[in-house]
Structures are given as structure tokens and as C-alpha cells.
């Protein structure tokens, strides 16, 4: 690895040194295209973040794609109901790797205010691997921008090789997750045991 100070000194002289990993992650991190997919109230704040006042375009994510095939990031903005959960998982499965998930708002994290509802999924992390959680009901647009920056930092340090390499570079890691079916009283399965373990209450 090249020394940081030397690199900066060279950059001042107009010589840019980089590694393949840095270049690759720099490119990916600054053009994260979200899926335009709003579920509930939080989606309005997501829209507000993409409008003039907050301008998500400063972070390279203004390109909201209506098709999952062109998106890198799924912002689960709002309450995931049990009727909607299969579609959310299906959309995720249709996205190409590398893909990331931001759970925006209390509802997407845990069911939020509606957690006692019979038709509400208690957190999207029961069915999908979530990278960033944003608490709030609704989180302010600044919070979404912060989550995006956090995600960019996470992408920046992803190694291309080695045991800690991300999922999309690991042929054995799953990139699709089982889609729940509609049952007579609930969706089956109600959660993915590989992804989610019930919290143990300790008193």
C-alpha cells in the first residue's frame, strides 16, 4: 500500500495513484441508484429529499429507477404490510448484485407505531438483509442523506478479495431470498430464520 502522505503530495503535483479496489468502490459509491419505490409516509420524506431543498443529487443518487433491474439500492420507506411483503422480497430478488437495503423509518425497522397490527410485518429485516437502519417516524430528509453517506462509507472499504469480501463477489453467498406465501392466518414463512433471530429479552 502506498503511504497516505506521499499520495497526497503526488496528487498536488497532478499525479493520481490509486488501487483497483479504491477506484472500483469510488465509482460504485458515488452513483448509488435507488429503486423508486415508496410504501407509506416515509416515502414522502424520501421524495422531499430528492427535491430542490435537500437535493439528493449532490450524492449521486438522484436517479430513481422505476425498474428493479437498474437499481442498486432499495430504500424500504414505510410500513411493510404482510400483503406487500412478498412483492418487496420479489423486487429485491430482481435487483442485480451488488445491492443494498436501507430500512427507512420505524415501520421498516420494527413495525413502528403499527407493530401491533395483524397485517403489519414487524421489520423488513425478518425477510431481507438490511445494511442501514434509519430510525424516526418519519426520519427527516437529512437523516436519509446521512444514511446514504454511511452507505457510501461502507461501500468504500469493501475488500475485493479475501474472506470478508462482499456478497456479490462471493459465489456461495445467496443473492435471492425466499418469497413468503399467503397463508390462511399469516404469511408463511413469517420470517427467514437465516436472517433474523428473535431478540432474547434479558431482565
Amino acid at each position, binding site marked *: 500500500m502506498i503511504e497516505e502522505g506521499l499520495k497526497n503530495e503526488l496528487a498536488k503535483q497532478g499525479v493520481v495513484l490509486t488501487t483497483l479496489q479504491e477506484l472500483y468502490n469510488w465509482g460504485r459509491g458515488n452513483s448509488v441508484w435507488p429503486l423508486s419505490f415508496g410504501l*407509506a409516509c416515509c*416515502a414522502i420524506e424520501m421524495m*422531499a429529499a430528492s427535491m430542490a431543498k435537500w437535493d439528493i443529487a449532490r450524492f449521486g443518487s438522484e436517479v430513481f429507477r*422505476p425498474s428493479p433491474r437498474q437499481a442498486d439500492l432499495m430504500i424500504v420507506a*414505510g410500513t411493510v*404490510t404482510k*400483503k406487500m411483503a412478498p412483492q418487496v422480497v420479489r423486487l429485491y430478488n430482481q435487483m442485480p448484485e451488488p445491492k443494498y437495503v436501507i430500512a427507512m423509518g420505524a415501520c421498516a425497522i420494527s413495525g413502528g407505531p*403499527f407493530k401491533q*397490527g395483524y397485517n403489519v410485518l414487524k421489520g423488513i429485516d425478518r425477510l431481507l438483509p438490511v445494511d442501514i437502519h434509519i430510525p424516526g417516524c418519519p426520519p*427527516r430528509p437529512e437523516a436519509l442523506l446521512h444514511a446514504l453517506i454511511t452507505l457510501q462509507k461502507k461501500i468504500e472499504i469493501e475488500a475485493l478479495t479475501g474472506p470478508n469480501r462482499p456478497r456479490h463477489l462471493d459465489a456461495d453467498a445467496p443473492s435471492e431470498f425466499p418469497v413468503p406465501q399467503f397463508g390462511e392466518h399469516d404469511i408463511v414463512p413469517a420470517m427467514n430464520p437465516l436472517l433474523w433471530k428473535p431478540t432474547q429479552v434479558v431482565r
Partner: protein
Amino acid sequence: MSVATESPAPRNYEVVPKTSPEGSELDGELLEVAMGPQHPSTHGVFRMDVVLDGETVVKLKPVFGYLHRNHEKIAENTSYLGSMPYTDRLDYFCSLTNNWAYALAVEKLAGLQVPERAEFIRVITAELTRLQNHTSVCGFLLQDMGALGTPLMYAFREREKILDLFESLTGARMMCNYMRFGGCRCDLPPGWLDRVRKIVGDFPQFLDSYEALLNTNEILLARTQGVGRLPRELAISAGVTGPMLRACGVDYDIRKVDHYGIYDRFEFRIPLGEQGDVYDRYMIRLLEIRESLKILQQALKEVPGGPIIDPKAKLRSFRPKVGEAYGRIEGPKGELGFYLISDGSPNPYRYRVRPPSLINLTILEDMCLGQSVADAVVTLGSVDIVLGEVDR
């Protein structure tokens, strides 16, 4: 007005493809499309099952429930006051009018009086809500027609100004949770009214430029005039309310009919349409903004002092007497009502929201049949739905 002998029936039917006598091979093919729940033009997680003959819609069945969050069931297990924050999340564009409708129903149930100052604050916040709702709806409608960006960006720029007002008053941009039974939660912060005056004073200028940009735009006229026409008898029978109804020429505004709050003190007119098409709905919304500005200007002149909540109103251990009440207001989307049954316990026995967005969708199929699928999208956009309220 003639009395309809039978309400035009909803249909449950099989569609048979048309075949022409020449029998070209493309005849007789029907295409079934499930638009939604993830579709950029369905304003959230709404789904329409459309059957198309070429480009023409021959059958359209809306499918709901993708945002059914069990609001009513949760409210029946919560105290009366505990449901107030949930009403914010019904129609998440207009939390303050939702608060008002719920507070009004409970005030009827418990017989509470609202002090004058609180009534003024309620009118001001409700009309500001109507401003921001109608501007954003017009932006979304234009977006459905393909004007990506500009109109919606303008609308949201103005909306943000109003949301800033809400934030300084209630502490939250969208989920205000501001009204209480018999009044409001907190008094106006210093200088708030002056800020409202400034924004209300500047709003007509924005509206003028918005209308100059759009109203005579050729594409807008071509895509909206004569599209999604709704006959007036059908609109009444189907319980359509709000700007949708008035676009058909029916003079029915609950602010004028019920005189709830202090609306009879203000002078304003009810804009009415003639054709009942998408263009009328769009124009009615813009005209209603102007009328709301008039109300705001009158209300801002003299906001009286005094208490902001009925001293009799109890926040804790609030138990209305056994009985029931239905309270309704003119929300930005239409008649928003709450129906409550009390059994004397701290929780309502039955809690029901009368959702204007859902009921305005009853006639979606009737409006879209025979039109092209692109027009169905525009028609849906002109209904102005918010899924949180459609599915609750």
C-alpha cells in the same frame, strides 16, 4: 336534478374480445396487466388489474390492502388520545385536517366546547394544509403526464415553506399531532403569525407563475380535457366528495353545509366545474387554493387571545359517556369522517374512519372504461389518493 332510479351498478363481468368481420389475426387478443403495487404512477402501493384491448381499457379492478395497517383495530385497543398520532398517518399529506376531524368527532361524543382562539388556529392550520396538499397534487398530476421534475419541484418548494411553519408550531414537519379534544396542544410561538402572513402574501405570486406555466400548456390541455369524465348523478350516488365532486358541478362543501368550526365567519366561494373531467379537477384545485388564501387572509387579521383548550377537557383518564357520534370535515381530499362508539371505557368500542380517498375510487372503473391506458393513469392521478388513507 333528476332523481336516479337505480344507482349505476358496479360490474362483475367477463370481457369478450371484439372481433372484426375481416378477422385480422390481431383481433381477439386481450391483455391483462397488473399495474402496481410497485408502479411509478400509482402513488404508492395501489394496484389496478387492467384488461386491455389494444390500448383501450375494457375492464379495470382496483386492488387494495397493500398498506392496510390496521389503524382501526389498533385504535380500538388504545385510549382516545392515543389514536391522535395515528390519525396523522392516515393521509400523510394532511395530518392537521385529520387531527381536526378526529378531534371534532370526539368533541361531539363528549360535548366539549372549543375556545375561539383554538378555532382560529385550527382554521389557519387546516387551510395551510389544503394549500400544500393541492399544490403537491397538481405537481403529481403533471408528473403522471410526463412532466418529470419541474412542476413537482416547484410545488415541493412551496410545500417546504409551509412545512417549516408546521415544524415551528408543532415540532414535526409531517406528523403534527397538534390538536387535542377541545382545543390545541400548544400556543403559537412568537412571530409565527407574521411568518404565515408573509407566506400567504407571497403565495399568489407563486400561483400566478405556476398557472402561467401550465394552464394553457398544449400537452396539458390535450391530456386532460374530456378525459376521465364523471357524470354528476353517478358522482352523487357513489359518494364522491371534495374537489372531485365539485368538478362535476355539485355545490357541496361541508365547510358551508355543516358550518363546523368558525367557517361561517369567513367569506369564500365554492368553485364549481362543468364537465367533470380531469382538467376541471385540476382547475378546481387551483381555484380552491385561491379561496383558501382568502380565508387565511381574513383569519389572520384578528386572531383573538385567550385559552387554547377547553378547561373541561381532560387529557388523562378521558372516558366519554356511552353513546356514539359521527363527525366530519371537508378535508383536502373530500369528506373525512370519524365514527366513534363509546362504551364508557377509556378506549373507543368502535372506531371508524370514513376515508374519502377510498370512496372516491369507487368510480375509477367507470371513468376509465373505453379510454387508453395512459389516460387511466392521468385519471387516477386526478382522483388524489393517499394510500395510507385508502387502506388505513
